[in-house]
């Protein structure tokens, strides 16, 4: 039961952390529960479809379908996260300039949720399909302790979701003045980490060179498979033995989003209350 809980926890963790970040990023937005809930529901539906067609996906594209599918999902999520941040960089200033609360709420209410909802859906789909496969496998094996193992699965699910909730609650403690800036940075790092993961899948499909098999090795210091390693992998893209191409994808995505945000942010506003937004 415990091993089932651990396996499900690992798979759920990444999606839960992403949902936590999205919840923090959409703080104060009208009906965001409905939006994010729909994103999770669509992601779960997608996860079922993906799990059921796992055989067909793996067999596609000369047997490299699984890799390309994962890489595609990650690349689309990176684009959406970047898009969201550029939009926020452009309109964040407007948000800060609105002195009265009503005006601020109106601008805040116009924030585009589609991109973040899509990212939630994609994250749930990618991680969820593995959970579905794994739990299906337990059911198919029809061992005696199926009930116990399902209980383990549920425990893992709750623990994983709990980590996402902790991240969200932690971020809420950041003063709202800085929350904007903090979520922008987190989303940029999240996107860079996803781009590096996508590069890994494309190398696995033999479509990209590694450039260097591993630029550094911190696996003895902080193993990627440890809890902290996994947390950092999702949040900032930590890899204990990164391939050269992964680091390249990471830097290009990080720099690309930061540059686009700067390019589209307009003229900086000198007021000290707006300085935080201006720095994004």
């Amino acid at each position, binding site marked *: 039961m415990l091993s089932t809980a651990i396996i499900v926890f690992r798979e759920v963790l990444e999606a839960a952390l992403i949902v936590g970040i999205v919840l923090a990023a959409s703080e104060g937005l009208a009906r965001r529960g409905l939006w994010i809930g729909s994103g999770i529901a669509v992601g779960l539906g997608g996860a079922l479809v993906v799990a059921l067609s796992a055989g067909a996906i793996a067999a596609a594209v000369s047997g*490299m379908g699984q890799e390309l599918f994962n890489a595609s999902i990650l690349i689309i999520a990176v684009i959406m996260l970047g898009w969201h941040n550029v939009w926020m960089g452009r309109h964040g200033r407007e948000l800060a300039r609105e002195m009265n609360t009503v005006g601020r709420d109106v601008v805040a209410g116009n924030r585009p949720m*589609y991109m973040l909802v899509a990212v939630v859906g994609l994250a749930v789909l990618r991680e969820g399909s593995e959970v579905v496969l794994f739990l299906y496998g337990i059911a198919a094996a029809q061992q005696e302790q199926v009930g116990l193992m399902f209980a383990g699965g549920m425990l893992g699910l709750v623990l994983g979701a709990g980590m996402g909730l902790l991240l969200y609650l932690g971020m809420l403690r950041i003063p709202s003045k800085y929350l904007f800036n903090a979520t922008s940075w987190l989303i940029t790092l999240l996107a860079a980490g996803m781009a590096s993961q996508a590069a890994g899948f494309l190398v696995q499909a033999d479509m990209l060179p590694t450039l260097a098999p591993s630029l550094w090795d911190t696996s003895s210091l902080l193993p990627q498979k440890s809890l902290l390693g996994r947390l950092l992998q999702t949040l900032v893209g930590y890899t204990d033995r990164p391939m050269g191409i992964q680091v390249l994808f990471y830097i290009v995505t990080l720099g690309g989003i930061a540059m686009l945000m700067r390019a589209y942010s307009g003229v900086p506003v000198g007021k000290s209350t707006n300085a935080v937004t201006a720095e994004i």
Partner: protein
Amino acid sequence: MRHGRTSQADTLLNKLAPARVAILGLSLLGATAWLTLSLMPVAVAADMPVYNLITKDGLFTPDLLEVPAGIKFKIVMKNDGSGPEEFESSDLHREKVATPGQSVSILLGPLKTGTYGFYGEFHPETAKGKIVAK
């Protein structure tokens, strides 16, 4: 109120949220399929050596694969077990799921001489193996 009209439109949009998310989901699925297909790899070399690996209920057979260093090769992993298994290796940067009855290909190399570990993500305690490149 210069935002008045946008606000009304947005309220309407929000009311239609579930339908719009479903449409968004479908278009995402389309985009993913399109991207997957457009990423069609350059033809995988047919002449690379193939090594067979069987995974069954948390055990790999063989659990030691000897491969030549410096060339590309392919592992074909067949899942003879009753549940799914994921071939995973931090040393080799590989992760690949196989459902029961399924055979999956893992492209590897060229490797430097050395020992590379792999394990089954769904049975991490028992499913362990090594690749030795000579």
